[in-house]
């Protein structure tokens, strides 16, 4: 590797650590052990990103100098991160058996799937929850199953039937703190409603083995696109982990690039794909090209792309504004009417959890939707 001076800010250090073993990165790590003012926030952020394996690998391979105390601290953090991943996998095995027994189709996505299928070693990538995709018509059955297994729903839906018709996901937590996101689609709002779910389910599952169970995950195209949605439309500012996942998939994955761009075009999500790739490549200072990085650099964002992306890309992207902006993406007059009714008449439980009243909820959503044009 050559090029840039060694990283000195925590943000740069995090990025340099997580890509130290990727080909073509010009980010450099310092050759001497970091002082506490840099080490402590670095470890804290890497732990939050659940990429302690990457930091430990950088230390073990000599890419980053560490003191014996730092190594010990890192090993402890890494054991905790991996222990959490194992407990979640134990939960996944239990849920998978329950879903199979009740003929509910499930595809694992994000952390658990990416860790087991995309990285060269599960120790490289931890995760803090389980993301399970179920078919729209099986959302309710899956929710009942989770409840019967001791999980409680985090937040109610705006209305009955909303989850299976328009929802992105519902979150469930059990007594041990295991969190399960039951997805119908990737994200809320207009981009979530544009995902062609039948196409997504048409891709053959990838699978991995956990103990004696074989777990089905989204296929490589679905997994890559889901990662892009998370990288661009999830947290803002974007998290490092989905970008690191994407870099791994683009450099070593088996998703067919033509199929990826074709699906993205069909879903109206080319801007999501292009933005995820560009931000990942620039953020990690990667120089190696792939078919998809070349495509992403050439893609021109339209005015509509920018408007839609701006809805999501702010720290407080609000539920109501995103939902109202989705109306035009709901197909069919009846469905659209049902969608608008559900959003404009949310149930009392839904409002209670948001500490809001109906007029305040509507006003806030309308204001934010209008302020974004």
């Amino acid at each position, binding site marked *: 590797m050559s090029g840039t001076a060694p990283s000195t800010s925590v943000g740069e250090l995090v990025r340099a650590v997580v890509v130290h073993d990727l080909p073509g990165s010009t980010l450099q790590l310092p050759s001497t052990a970091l002082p506490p003012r840099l080490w402590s926030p670095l470890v804290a952020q890497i732990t939050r990103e659940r990429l302690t394996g990457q930091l*430990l690998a950088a230390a*073990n391979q000599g890419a980053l100098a560490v003191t014996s105390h730092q190594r010990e601290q890192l*090993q402890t953090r*890494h*054991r905790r991160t*991996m*222990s959490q*991943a*194992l*407990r979640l*996998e*134990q939960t996944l*095995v239990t849920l998978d058996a329950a879903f199979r027994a009740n003929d509910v189709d499930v595809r694992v996505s994000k952390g658990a799937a990416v860790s087991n299928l995309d990285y060269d*070693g*599960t*120790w490289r990538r931890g995760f803090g929850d389980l993301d399970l995709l179920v078919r729209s018509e099986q959302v309710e059955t899956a929710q009942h199953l989770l409840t019967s297994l001791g999980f409680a729903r985090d937040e109610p839906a705006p209305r009955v039937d909303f989850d299976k018709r328009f929802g992105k996901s519902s979150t469930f937590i059990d007594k*041990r703190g295991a969190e399960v996101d039951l997805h119908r689609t990737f994200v809320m709002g207009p981009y979530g409603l544009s995902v062609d779910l039948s196409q997504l389910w048409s891709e053959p599952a990838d699978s991995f083995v*956990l*103990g*004696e169970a074989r777990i089905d995950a989204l296929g490589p195209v679905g997994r890559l696109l889901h990662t892009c949605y998370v990288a661009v439309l999830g947290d803002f500012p974007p998290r490092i982990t989905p970008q690191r996942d994407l870099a791994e998939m683009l450099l070593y994955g088996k998703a067919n690039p033509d199929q990826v761009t074709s699906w993205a075009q069909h879903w109206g999500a080319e801007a999501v794909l292009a933005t995820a790739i560009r931000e990942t490549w620039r953020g990690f200072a990667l120089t190696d090209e792939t078919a998809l990085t070349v495509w992403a650099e050439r893609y021109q964002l339209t005015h509509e792309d920018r408007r839609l992306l701006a809805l999501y890309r702010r720290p407080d992207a609000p539920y109501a504004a995103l939902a109202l902006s989705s109306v035009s993406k709901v197909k069919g007059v009846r469905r659209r009417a049902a969608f608008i009714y559900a959003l404009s008449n949310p149930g009392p439980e839904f409002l209670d959890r948001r500490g809001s009243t109906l007029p305040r909820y509507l006003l806030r959503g309308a204001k934010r939707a209008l302020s974004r044009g």
Partner: protein
Amino acid sequence: MDATVGHPVLSQQQAALTRRVGSGVLILLPLCDDPVLLDGGATAIWDALQRPKTRQTLITELSTRYGTPADELALAAEPVISDLCERGLLREQS
């Protein structure tokens, strides 16, 4: 599977979930809340049993790998194997 007929065969607990952590391995058994951390010789034994085998074959294999006489290695490994079996991490079946 080990070809030695009639001798008990050692194997990893198949339902165990595992993660590499540096030179060690974390193992979580079904119905347990906390993973067990194996390191040192216990990790070597665990790794060598990715395929089931008899104690004799296991000792011979480890002895060759680490260049240690088989009787010395058996002396050190037997208590570890017994401990792993007692903890349910390994199974020994005829």
